[in-house]
């Protein structure tokens, strides 16, 4: 029964994402964005128990740098993402996971406010536009390559030393330190890697869209949906299934034109939250 429902969820999601939208490439790219964000949160939560609610900040950083600066904007985006993620981690590292999440959320909200205040550079609430030659194809290719690299990194790391380090950290930071595992080094490594990954996703987003506005890169859905998916997923295939289901339903409702996608999504999230509470602790 479970397999049957997963099968139907995947069929519904794939159908809604591939056949309903007018622009399939854009729809696929949207799916990649959600997948990478969900994956980064899932990976961080599984290995360090950290739930970063501010990952969109890195998406915005990559996107804005690529659009604002002409040639080497993407390089600056990655460098800035690296520096900012290191700074954020070392500022918030001693906090409980809940407060770490809130702190990273505040960093993201500050970024959002800054993107509106610095209107001479970012275009403020109206956004900024730059067209790229073959932007869609380049962006999609970069997105696919990034996804494959992240999956490769995950497969390599999770089967190796990181798996044992993560298990020890889950038992408690002090306990892990007794075995010579430092939360700081593991957390910093994964957090910075995921943040830089998301900034590359931002570059891919800028190439695909060309037009960057705070409402799109700091869209609350980009935090809420990946977070919920990361929390309820037990394995990588779960991320795919839940994302296909959620985005498929959204796409279907948007296609019908009822304008209730957000409400339905909110209802589903509330139900998923309840399911999560009912699950037994790992």
């Amino acid at each position, binding site marked *: 029964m479970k397999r049957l429902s997963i099968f139907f969820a995947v069929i519904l999601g794939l159908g809604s994402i591939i056949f309903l939208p007018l622009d399939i490439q854009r729809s696929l790219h949207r799916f990649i964005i959600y997948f990478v964000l969900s994956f980064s949160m899932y990976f961080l939560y599984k290995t360090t*128990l950290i*739930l970063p609610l501010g990952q969109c900040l890195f998406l915005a950083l990559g996107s804005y740098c690529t659009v604002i600066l002409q040639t080497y904007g993407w390089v600056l985006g990655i460098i800035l993402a690296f520096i900012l993620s290191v700074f954020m981690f070392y*500022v*918030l590292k*001693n*906090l409980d*996971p*809940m*407060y770490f999440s*809130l*702190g990273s*959320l*505040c*960093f993201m*909200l*500050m970024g959002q*406010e*800054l993107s*509106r*205040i610095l209107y001479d550079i970012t275009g403020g609430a109206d956004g900024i536009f730059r067209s790229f030659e073959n932007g869609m194809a380049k962006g999609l290719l970069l997105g696919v390559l990034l996804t494959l690299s992240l999956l490769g990194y995950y497969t390599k790391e999770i089967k190796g030393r990181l798996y044992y380090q993560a298990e020890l950290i889950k038992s408690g930071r002090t306990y892990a330190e007794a075995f010579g595992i430092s939360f700081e080094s593991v957390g910093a490594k994964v957090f910075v890697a995921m943040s830089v990954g998301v900034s590359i996703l931002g570059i891919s987003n800028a190439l695909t869209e060309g037009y960057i506005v705070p409402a799109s890169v700091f869209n*609350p*859905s980009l*935090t*809420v949906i990946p*977070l*919920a998916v990361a*929390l*309820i997923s037990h394995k990588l295939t779960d991320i795919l299934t839940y994302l296909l289901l959620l985005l498929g339903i959204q796409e279907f409702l948007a296609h019908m034109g009822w*304008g*209730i*996608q*957000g*409400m339905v*999504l*909110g*209802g*589903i*999230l*509330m*139900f*998923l*939250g*309840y*399911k*999560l*509470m*009912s*699950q*037994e*602790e790992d």
Partner: protein
Amino acid sequence: MQTELLLSGISLGGVYGILALGLALILNIFGLANMGHGAIMVSGPLILICGLNLKAFGPLGYTSVLILALLLWFTWRFGFKVLSVEHSEGGSRRGSGILVMGLGLIKVVEELGAKLLPGGVIFLDYLSPEPGVIFNTPRVLAIALSVTICLLTRLFLKHTDTGRCILAVSQNPMAATIVGIKLKSINLIVFLYSVFLTVFSGVILASIVPLSPFWALELTIKALLIVGLARPFKITDIVLVSFGLGLFEVLISYYLGEEIRNLIIFATFIVILIYRSKLGLIYEKA
């Protein structure tokens, strides 16, 4: 001008005080931060607007009130009741579950608010301020109501049996159960009282400033900031910190500009989170 700023700051702080009081009750009894707290606050004026103008909104108004009522029931029945009674173990899953539920609640309220109010803001301007009059009635009423509610809550917690039971449960739920306190009833009372306070704070806020349904998350963060700075169940702390935050916000908006107000508030929140222990702001339970 200074009197006007002071009045604006204190009235805004008073609203934050009631909001934070609702969150503090939940945080101390259930041990979890309700991320949907701001959404519950925004739903207050939404319900009031629909209730007062059911004919104007037509079927959309009835449906919205029904949806909001169902959401609150769902939050209790499958959220707080489940985590407080049936699943007393498994902290991280409980916390994550409530987090996801809260974010879902925010999503629904945002879209419902945007649908109901094409202008995008809720403003219960029942008494327009007269030109030249500094003490406009909604602001003075907001301050009076905030102070009264905080005082009544303090009296309720300190001088009634139910209030003492709430304090006992917040200190040690297991010991409270052993001495015969019905945990389920106390949890329900706290949840309902917190919802009442939060919804009420939303109504007062919408009467003094135009309230956007998209402020839900921001309001939750501000409430968390106040609760984080105050000692558990010390209502005087909550009131003082809230008034301080209200004044701080108004002064920043006036002297530095509206745009950077939130930027400074969020930066302050991060600084307080980091230096909480050094500032002596981590407390034992009440």
